[in-house]
């Protein structure tokens, strides 16, 4: 298996699906001539031409709407948002048009499209450009919400997303694009709605997704030195959520820490905790603890930003607390 970056894994998925199905096209700001703001679409214009790799003006609502219309008439658009922060301008098309089209048309219009782009905080991009939107988007019936945390999942899930007949929200990470990992060559599919245990352990479960998977793995490495083994459950898909995987892990370890990039109130972790208390009540030896961004707009100052973000130290402290070792 080749070791490639998360960015190149995404490019592989795009290229393979563009080759496989000529109804697939990519549209967004700077995706064609500039090879993508984060170079995810590098080389695709040359290979597939301007009818399949389409540069748009800075009009998120407009090109998202074009994507919805194209999907209604049988194409399979991939709409790239330069970041999900900019997608707020297009949220009406995502939530009111794409998510509801199949339902409100009585099943007449499928919506085989993907909205993708980087999500969550990078470094010092301040309050408006450092936000994790998965809890907003996962709230909407009609959408599927994917949050790959590794290059292999990025490739396999993007291919699944493009082939899905429903609108799929695909959340990448600016800080993830350069991370490397083994990615199977050629046809590699990761099914939507299936979590993966990234690390097997018996003392505590960390349930997380997206960028925080790397944080969880780091904490697992750290605690392994103390003889504490963690089960790291990577949800991979937020909606539909793999409740069985969560339950299986917590029933094994009897305790859980739920880690996410976003804010606490009504976050993804709140839903995970709800599943845990319902499915695993008699298995719990400690209250479940959540690790998340502090309840403030992301500060610009480096030191404050660091304090506001969920990180390995906070996660480690949470694990120790549920293990009654604090």
């Amino acid at each position: 298996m080749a070791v490639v970056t998360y960015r190149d894994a995404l490019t592989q998925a795009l290229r393979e699906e563009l080759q496989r199905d000529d109804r697939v096209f990519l549209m967004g700001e700077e995706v064609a001539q500039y090879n993508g703001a984060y170079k995810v679409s590098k080389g695709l214009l040359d290979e597939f031409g301007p009818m399949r790799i389409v540069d748009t003006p800075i009009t998120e609502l407009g090109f998202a709407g074009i994507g919805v219309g194209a999907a209604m008439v049988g194409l399979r658009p991939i709409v790239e948002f330069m970041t999900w922060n900019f997608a707020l301008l297009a949220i009406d098309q995502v939530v009111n048009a794409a998510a509801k089209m199949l339902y409100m048309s009585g099943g007449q219009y499928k919506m085989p499209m993907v909205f993708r782009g980087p999500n969550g905080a990078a470094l010092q991009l301040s309050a408006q450009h450092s936000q994790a939107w998965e809890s907003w988007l996962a709230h909407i019936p009609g959408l599927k919400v994917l949050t790959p945390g590794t290059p292999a999942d990025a490739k396999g899930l993007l291919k699944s997303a493009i082939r899905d007949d429903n609108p799929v929200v695909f959340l990448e990470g600016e800080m993830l694009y350069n991370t490397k990992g083994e990615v199977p060559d050629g046809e590699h599919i990761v099914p939507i709605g299936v979590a993966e245990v990234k690390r097997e352990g018996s003392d505590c479960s960390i349930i997380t997704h997206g960028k925080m998977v790397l944080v969880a793995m780091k904490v697992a490495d750290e605690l392994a030195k103390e003889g504490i083994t963690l089960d790291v459950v990577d949800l991979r898909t937020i909606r539909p959520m793999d409740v069985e995987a969560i339950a299986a892990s917590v029933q094994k370890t009897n305790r859980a820490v739920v880690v996410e990039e976003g804010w606490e109130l009504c976050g993804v972790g709140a839903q995970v905790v709800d599943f845990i208390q319902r499915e695993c009540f008699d298995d719990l030896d400690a209250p479940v603890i959540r690790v998340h961004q502090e309840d403030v707009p992301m500060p610009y100052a480096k030191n404050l930003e660091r304090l506001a973000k969920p990180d390995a130290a906070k996660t480690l402290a949470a694990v120790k607390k549920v293990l009654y070792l604090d």
Partner: protein
Amino acid sequence: MATKVTMEALSPTMEEGRLVKWVKNEGDAVKTGDILAEVETDKAVMELVARADGVLRKRLANEGDSSPVGTLLGVIATADENIDALVGGGAAAPAPAAPAAPASAAGGSTAPANEAVAETKDTAGATAVPDAPAQAQGEASTPPQEKAQATAQAAPPRPAAAPPRPPAARPPQQGNGARPAAGTQSGGRQRSSPLARRLASERGIELGKIQGSGPGGRVVKRDIESAVSGAGGRSAARSAAAERLAAEGDFRDVPLTQIRKTIAKRLAESNGPIPTFFLTAELDVTRAAEMREQLAEMGDEYKASFNDIIIKATALALAEHPAVNAHWLGDKIRQFNRIHVAMAVAVEDGLITPVLFDADRMQLWEISAMARDLAGRARERKLTPEEYTGSTFSVSNLGMFGIDQFTAIINPPEAGILAVGGVEEKAVVIDGAVTVRKRMRVTMSCDHRVIDGATGAKFLQTLRRLIENPLLLVV
């Protein structure tokens, strides 16, 4: 506001109850939680408690009446309130306050029904919430650092590490059966994780006997595990039977069957509060005497008295006859899985009964050493209360005073006591020939409410087998 007193479901399976006795009279002031009446359920006699403050204005059921759950039994109201509508109204109103069932679920499915009532009282109005972080959600103006601090301060202080296990099961408290659910919490409710409750229930461990090591004394998984692994850890060489007993908890409550209730009532009427009968057996202790000599030759540390041998044999026999290793608790019989044998020791102006805890698991030499130590300190009046309470059965020996046989008086709530006479050489006939053998008479006093004649006799058979084949005591 008047409140109905209804027949409550005092056990999970109760469909109707018999009002045994009114504890409060019409016109008595009552407070929430006061005992109004005693009700016999399908399982036991339980307390019906007031669910409101006021005056017990009306009693609508007579003592001895049986009525289905939900039946109106009385009315609590203020002294001058008009309750005609209630008294004349329908009888099948639901209980005004939470019935016992939810509390019983919280206490674990094996909790005896009377604990469920205690829990209901303790937790009324206070749902058990694990210590949620005291973190105000949704206050965007709170700087993160302050919030982190607030959370840290809100965390409860760490409790000390799990203390060593108490020496033995305490005897059950006497009284009306309303034992507190648990020990250390100020609210009277033992905190425990759901997993700990499940494990305790599966392993037959009483949560109340465990000191929690989690925040606020919460009993967590590791506490259950250490309770299981630490149980009777005094001797590494525990028998498989002892393992099994420990795994099943310290005791088993046996509900009273109707026949058992009748036996208890009739016999107590006939013969004092404890209807006692006596079983005497003469045991051949020739071989036990030989063993004593051989042990003494091996060195002082192996020396054992007849009394030590009897205690060891009694403990092993009790292990085979749990029905004898029991307490009479009025509404049930409690059979103990652990065996704590008390031995009567004469002191200057009376007697005292120090206890050999888990005597069945002690080696003979351990019993000797401990019995010697306990008896010595008993005579010096240096025993602590823990050392002379908690027994499940007793042995009294007057052999050293030249007594051939006697009857000992049961120490309630124990169900039996063994009175041991002196060892005497006698001419006995064995296989048609007269031989001289060492003989000893034991008399067991039995509480007939707990032990029937045949039960006691079988126990003595086992005791005879052990004492007449004393190698069984050391293998």
